[in-house]
């Protein structure tokens, strides 16, 4: 999977590395700010009030 990705990317090795680093940063941003907050509702439900 990652080997194929490396082969389809254009340019010399350092350009490919740069593209991958940017892609990783984008994926992490999406996970930390959108996916994980959404998922935490189901993984770790919390109640802090008395009722």
């Amino acid at each position, binding site marked *: *999977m990652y080997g194929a990705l490396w082969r389809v990317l254009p340019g010399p090795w350092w350009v490919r590395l740069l593209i991958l680093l940017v892609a990783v940063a984008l994926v992490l941003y999406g*996970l*930390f700010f959108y996916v*994980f907050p959404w998922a935490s509702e189901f*993984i*770790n*439900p*919390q109640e*802090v*009030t008395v009722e």
Partner: protein
Amino acid sequence: MGEVLITVGVVALLYVAWQLWIGDLIFAAQKAAVAKSLSEEWAQEAAAVAPTASPSPDATGTPAPEPAAVTADPIVLPEADDGQVFANLYIPRFGPDYAVQIAGGVTREKTLDPIGVGHYPGTSMPGAVGNAAFAAHRTTYGKPFNRIADLHVGDAIVIETPEGWYTYRFRTLEYVTPESVDVLLPVPQEDGVDANGRYLTMTSCSPMFSMSERIVGYSSFESFTPRSAGPPASLTGGVTS
């Protein structure tokens, strides 16, 4: 296939890192930033209304105005609507950068998740006789009450509104069942007793990452500092003990 499984494992580990550490760094920083900009907004509004608040020395020799009283009878705001921000909370024990907004209501979707601290509807507002009760997360969402169990007797709990600062002093902690609504009574856990003092109650989850119990912190009112007198020593003086 092996790479897919490794990726899933890495994402799961990333989730754990986010849940326990990174997510709270992000949320807490965001929440402190909006609270501080709200505080600056209030300060500017107050300065615009009373431009003489900072007198400059003039040549006419008029005596300087009396310094504003440092304490006064507390001004009690009307109760806020669900999700409506009306105050900031500062707890010096939780660090000099700790600041979080307080809004009306204790629903997760409107107040506790997006804003921070929620005010139990029907309980007293800050400064009023009776019990002002608040709830907030102890884990996740910036975890405003994460260190509630670290409070020492006498620690300042300071609430800022456009009118000024309400200083409460922490008294004691308690662990109760989730149904223990009597901690919200005008005198906590004293049914049918009229309050003759001003109290503050904080509730959060206990143990951390669990819903089985609630941790409750009680504080009692010390003083109200009007906006014109500037931030009180309870806020600027740091942690006392």
